[in-house]
């Protein structure tokens, strides 16, 4: 007990250990919770942050959309204005043509207009006309009033085909404030007027003077006034003719143009069928003025909320939000998993450490000397037994090599050992002599295993030594005893046997019948003693594991017959009948000498315990791929209650002990042991006072692995 008290196994109670473990796990749970809460807060923050980003980017997209929309509207308005200006500007070039001085007829006019390709270039320019001052030719005859009022006639018009009815049409100056325009001398619009059948069109007038440019003086202008060039423009059509607004336009919007009174001149939807301007909920609406030569229209455009914003741009805020949330959740999951797996790993590590601790304790307290070294043999670990066996403390051993207690064998031994463990990386087993710290030597059985990983890299060695000094001593004394018995008992016996035989041979003189009979009996005793010594020695060798099996082809019948002849003097004297039944060709693979020993014991027992006149039967046969040999006697048998012990060492049946005290009780024990050695088995059937039959079963061919049995 004092020894045990020091071991940590006993010192620490199991429940105390468990509490400690639980306590540690509790610590870990708290840490786990902290990590989770922290992770959750960070994730929530990230989600809020991504919502803010979502909001900001949504607003940015709205602004972007608006900016693009306004830009678009201004752009369209500019285009319209540009078109109008360009169309009206035609009047200037026509005026310069008119003033070349040459007389112009309708056909020249038409030709002139056509050459300017007005119709092709300006579809919204409905007509260009020249309004001639009808009094021009007879100005001298006209009254002042008439002259004041003015009387104008449409002289030329283009396109002529659709408007020829207007040619010659007289227009009163008051209607269009013609006098005011003449006096102003500049391009002026008279606004929306009815011009014949054409309604809602805008008329621009450019006064034409004799000298080309308007005179400086008011009166001079009136005098030089020839007429007006007129352009009839349908501004609404401008929208139609704007090549910019084709139907394939990427942008969706609807637009309308209205005049200063708010009358809608035109509506247009891009693409056709797109929601009209009136439906303004959730959409962008923008109005902008279009100005030209004193006139003003209003262009109003309505478009979708995300005007000119790509599908990706539009989805961006949502993507930011979803991405942010997704990332946060992912982060949280990772933190959670990491925390959980870390906790699991900690628990596992704790568990493993505990297991390793136990393992280390077990190794430390093992009764064998165990050391672990690096590849150079320097000791990294030594257990308690190593201290006890070598006498060195662990402090003295660590860092040194096992040479401190070794070096007792020949150098070749260590060379071979290192070759096996370091070069061949195989375990080394062997018996070795070492020296303790106090100088005494001891025998040890060593097992050194290289520690090699799966790639064949050597990490070090594990050496296990078992102190077998005591065992060796015992073995040696046993061996010496056996030698002593062999020699000291056998030598006198040899001398006796040889003497008897020499006398019997008559070499030293004749012997009479009585003397010869006496010598024969003496010889029998000597032979018996020799057999007993042989049996004892055989058992001794057997128990020491020093009997080897030499297999060979054995003819069974020959063996049995030779044996039975050897016992002839004995059973002859007892007038017993010994019958041998054996098929001649029966043979088996076994050790002939050991088989002979088994059979000799069985046969001599049978003869010995069968009364005079009895029979002994020896029967051999092949049975189930085995050889079966029965040795049956008609002796006193083995009592039923003792049959279990029959093959035990020194067994002698009670009924035999009463009559005969000369047996050793070793014969059947030897038979049983040798039979096992040969891979066979032995059984018997016995009835008291009737006889015993021993049945020996041996394999015909001994399995190869048993050949080296016991070597």
């Amino acid at each position, binding site marked *: 007990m004092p020894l045990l008290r020091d071991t940590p196994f006993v010192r620490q109670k199991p429940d105390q250990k468990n509490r400690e473990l639980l306590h540690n796990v509790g610590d870990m749970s708290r840490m786990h919770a902290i990590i989770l809460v922290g992770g959750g807060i960070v994730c929530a923050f990230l989600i809020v942050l991504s919502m803010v980003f979502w909001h900001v980017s949504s607003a940015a997209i709205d602004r972007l959309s608006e900016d693009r929309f306004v830009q678009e509207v201004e752009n369209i308005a500019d285009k319209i204005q540009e078109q109008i200006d360009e169309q009206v500007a035609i009047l200037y070039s026509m005026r310069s043509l008119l003033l070349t001085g040459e007389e112009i007829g309708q056909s020249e006019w038409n030709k002139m207009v056509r050459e300017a390709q007005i119709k092709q270039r300006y579809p919204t320019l409905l007509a260009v006309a020249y309004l001639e001052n009808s009094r021009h030719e007879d100005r001298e005859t006209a009254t002042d009033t008439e002259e004041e009022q003015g009387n104008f006639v449409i002289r030329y018009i283009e396109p002529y085909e659709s408007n020829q009815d207007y040619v010659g049409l007289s227009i009163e100056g008051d209607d269009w404030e013609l006098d005011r325009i003449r006096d102003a001398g500049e391009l002026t619009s008279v606004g929306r007027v009815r011009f014949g059948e054409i309604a809602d069109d805008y008329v621009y007038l450019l006064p034409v003077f004799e000298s080309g440019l308007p005179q400086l003086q008011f009166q001079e202008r009136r005098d030089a006034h020839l007429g007006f060039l007129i352009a009839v423009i349908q501004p609404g059509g401008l929208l139609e003719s704007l090549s910019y607004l084709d139907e394939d336009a990427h942008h969706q919007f609807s637009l309308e143009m209205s005049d200063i009174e708010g009358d809608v001149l035109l509506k247009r939807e891009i693409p056709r069928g797109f929601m009209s301007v009136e439906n303004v909920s959730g959409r962008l609406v923008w109005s902008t003025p279009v100005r030209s030569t004193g006139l003003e229209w209003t262009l109003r455009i309505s478009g979708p909320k995300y005007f000119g914003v790509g599908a990706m741009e539009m989805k961006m805020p949502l993507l930011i939000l979803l991405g942010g949330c997704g990332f946060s959740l992912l982060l949280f999951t990772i933190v959670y998993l990491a925390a959980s797996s870390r906790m699991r790993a900690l628990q596992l590590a704790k568990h493993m450490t505990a297991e390793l601790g136990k393992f280390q304790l077990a190794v430390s307290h093992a009764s064998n000397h165990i050391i672990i070294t690096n590849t150079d043999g320097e000791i990294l670990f030594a257990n308690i037994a190593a201290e006890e066996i070598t006498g060195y403390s662990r402090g003295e051993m660590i860092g040194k090599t096992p040479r401190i207690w070794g070096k007792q064998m020949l150098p070749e031994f260590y060379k071979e050992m290192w070759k096996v463990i370091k070069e061949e990386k195989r375990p080394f087993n062997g018996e070795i002599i070492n020296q303790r710290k106090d100088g005494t030597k001891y025998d040890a059985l060593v097992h050194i295993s290289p520690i090699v990983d799966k790639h064949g890299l050597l990490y070090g060695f594990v050496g296990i030594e078992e102190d077998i000094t005591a065992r060796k001593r015992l073995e040696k004394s046993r061996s010496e005893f056996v030698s002593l018995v062999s020699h000291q008992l*056998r030598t006198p016996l040899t001398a006796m046997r040889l003497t008897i035989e020499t006398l019997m041979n008559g070499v030293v003189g004749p012997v009479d019948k009585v003397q010869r009979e006496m010598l024969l009996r003496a010889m029998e005793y000597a032979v018996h003693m020799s057999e007993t010594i042989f049996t004892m020695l055989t058992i001794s060798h057997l128990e020491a594991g020093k009997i080897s099996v030499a297999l060979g082809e054995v003819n069974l019948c020959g063996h049995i017959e030779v044996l039975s002849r050897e016992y002839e003097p004995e059973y002859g004297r007892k007038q017993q009948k010994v019958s041998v039944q054996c098929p001649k060709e029966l043979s088996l693979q076994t050790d002939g000498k050991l088989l002979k020993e088994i059979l000799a014991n069985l046969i001599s027992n049978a003869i010995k315990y069968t009364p005079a006149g009895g029979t002994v039967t020896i029967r051999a046969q092949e049975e189930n791929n085995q050889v079966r040999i029965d040795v049956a006697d008609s002796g006193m048998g083995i009592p039923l209650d003792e049959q279990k012990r029959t093959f035990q060492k020194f067994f002698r049946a009670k009924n035999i002990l009463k009559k005969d005290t000369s047996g050793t009780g070793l014969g059947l024990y030897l038979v049983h042991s040798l039979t096992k050695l040969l891979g066979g088995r032995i059984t018997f059937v016995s009835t008291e006072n009737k006889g015993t039959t021993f049945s020996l079963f041996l394999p015909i061919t001994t399995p190869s692995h048993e050949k080296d049995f016991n070597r």
Partner: protein
Amino acid sequence: MKKILIAEDEEFIANLYKLNLEEHGVAVEVVPDGKAAIESLERSKPNLFLLDLLMPEVDGFQVLKHIQEKGWKFPIVILTNLSQEIDKTQCKEFGAEDFLIKSDLGVEELWEKISVYL
């Protein structure tokens, strides 16, 4: 006449062997130890050498070793009372033909076993 050399330290036993074996018409020389055995072998080679193992000074194993080193060729039968397996194995390695136990054999049985080498 065939010659048998017997190395046996027990003089009485050696003489009994000599007495009985000479009845079979062979010449028998007896030497009391290994040293004498080697001296005898230096002089002349027998037809058969019966060798005991346990002898004073130079024992049977040393004699066997000497014979092996010299390369002498003649049948050698060990006749001893040692019966350890290791002894038998060692003798076989040194070239002994047979390993017989003195106390287990009568002279006639011995003759039966050794006459095959003559």
